[in-house]
């Protein structure tokens, strides 16, 4: 009911190849997240799937049928935009009804679906309001409502949370996750926030400059990043990447250790350095350690409250079993 296949899809804007030939399959019912740095082509890819852009070459199939030349409205997909893209002059009800009105669905059926969606999204009390009278989170819910009523084969989300403030974001994130758990419809979700990617995805697609760097479940990516780029991109704070002599000891070009996998001590350890900025969050403390001779800064996470001061000399020990090794090409060495 919602299997999307991209077959050698290419997209060029003028002379610029934004998406080089790309193959990708999104299984029915999967929650797939596209992540990657800004400008890597996440939105473009999503819009190609939606039909809002023409593919330059290749084929897009939805449930096995060629959809490449089908106009967006006919693909049976629903999209939730970053700016919500609500119709400001229509009430919430009208907004949600719009796609059904366009499809010529009978009034009473429309009403039934609107009521169901409103109930599911906690919007029942706001149906007569205009989008302008809603908070950011509520608007986002209306946008989702508008998508739901079409009963699409798949949902496409383009950074739907990036306009919300931090607290709301966490809430909406969970709501979307719950929605997926309930509807079990295919969802494709674009974000550049890796926390979102990690917490929501069944499958993450990491993109860089239009290329797929790695596809896998969040924990696969965390545990076994295929290359230096993915290693640095997934995980917060970033993995420490160390070149040179220390890496050579491990028979590779680069080694990577996550901040949470380094123990810090005032007495002894494998590496030494001086404490720079330390960030105390109460629950954790992040130390930025300078002058280790390994990399400009090594970030270390300590649980709870640990009392090193700016300038203290400290000793660091990486957990051996959590060291990632990469070769000259930056590829993981298993």
């Amino acid at each position, binding site marked *: 009911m919602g299997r999307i296949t991209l077959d050698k899809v290419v997209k060029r804007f003028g002379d610029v190849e934004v998406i080089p030939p790309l193959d990708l399959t999104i299984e029915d019912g999967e929650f797939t997240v596209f992540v990657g740095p800004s400008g890597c082509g996440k939105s473009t890819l999503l819009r190609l799937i939606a039909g809002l852009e023409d593919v330059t070459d290749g084929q897009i199939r939805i449930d096995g049928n060629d959809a490449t030349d089908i106009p*967006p409205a006919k693909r049976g997909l*629903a*999209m939730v*935009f970053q700016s919500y*893209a609500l*119709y400001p002059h229509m009430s919430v009800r009208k907004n949600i009804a719009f796609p059904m009105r366009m499809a010529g669905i009978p009034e009473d059926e429309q009403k039934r679906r609107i009521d169901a969606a409103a109930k599911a999204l906690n919007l029942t009390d706001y149906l007569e309001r205009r989008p302008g009278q809603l908070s950011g989170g509520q608007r986002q819910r209306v946008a989702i409502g*508008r998508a739901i009523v*079409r009963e699409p084969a798949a949902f496409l989300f383009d950074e739907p949370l990036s306009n919300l403030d931090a607290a709301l974001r966490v809430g909406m994130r969970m709501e979307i996750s719950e929605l997926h758990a309930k509807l079990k419809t295919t969802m494709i979700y674009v974000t550049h926030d890796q926390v979102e990617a990690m917490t929501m995805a069944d499958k993450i697609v990491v993109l860089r400059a239009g290329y797929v760097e790695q596809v896998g479940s969040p924990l696969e990516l965390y545990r076994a990043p295929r290359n230096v780029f993915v290693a640095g991109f997934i995980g917060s704070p970033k993995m420490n990447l160390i070149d040179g002599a220390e890496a050579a000891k491990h028979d590779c070009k680069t080694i990577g250790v996550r901040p949470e996998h380094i123990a810090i001590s005032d007495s002894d350890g494998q590496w030494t350095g001086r404490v720079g900025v330390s960030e105390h969050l109460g629950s954790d403390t992040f130390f930025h350690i300078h002058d280790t001779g390994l990399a400009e800064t090594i970030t270390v996470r300590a649980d709870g409250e640990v009392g090193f001061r700016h300038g203290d000399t400290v000793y660091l020990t990486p957990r051996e079993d959590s060291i990632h090794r990469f070769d000259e090409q930056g590829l993981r060495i298993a």
Partner: protein
Amino acid sequence: MARAASPRRKAITTLAAWSVGLLIFFPILWTMLTSFKTEATAIADPPVFLFFDWTLENYSVVQERSDYMRFLWNSIIIAGGSTILGIIVAVPAAWAMAFVPGRRTKDILLWMLSTKMLPAVGVLYPMYLIFIQMGLLDTRIGLTIVLMLVNLPIIVWMLYTYFKEIPGEILEAARMDGATLKEEILYVLTPMAIPGIASTLLLNVILAWNEAFWTLNLTAAKAAPLTAFIASYSSPEGLFYAKLSAASTMAIAPILILGWFSQKQLVRGLTFGAVK
């Protein structure tokens, strides 16, 4: 976040702003006052300001002489018609320019604007001949078309700037929701741009209303609007100040009232969307 001004400062500003406002408005005010005077009071030395015997006589004289309502009606039809016609032509064009910009979009826009620089007198004779050929002389439809063409660049430009403020995502959302191009423009774009369209409408009604070259030269009796009405008062009546004032007041009152009632929209319109 602006800081609250001190009452003293606010008082001074108030005084200054009102003085300037009244000074600028004074010619209109004076005309209106004079229209209620007798001819003798109108040229009294020293001038009388408010304390005179108010009379409506001038208005009845003017009305008797020329059938004001007919001119007014023509003005309304021509100004309104040309604006609406213009908007119908301009909305699709502005949609295309704003949402499907091409390499030459900006050039086309500037070219359109440059057609406004054609000196009307230079092409009057050809236009006159064309109008004779097509039997459009002294018809409302002919004038409506001409004024539509005269103002079309401005309409396109204004709509373009308003449309550009509308995020393309909303139109894409409509497309995803299954709207055809027509439905997209009709149900989503146009209603969203209502404030912009309203101000475009208003500004162009004003421009068309006050257009005094084509309206005068291409009409005689049937289609003559208020600009022609006032043209019959411009000389001997120059010395009948009160009657001149009455006629002037009658010519500008409708648009003045319209402008005042809708000044919020209009101010937006006047900025040509060029300044946020």
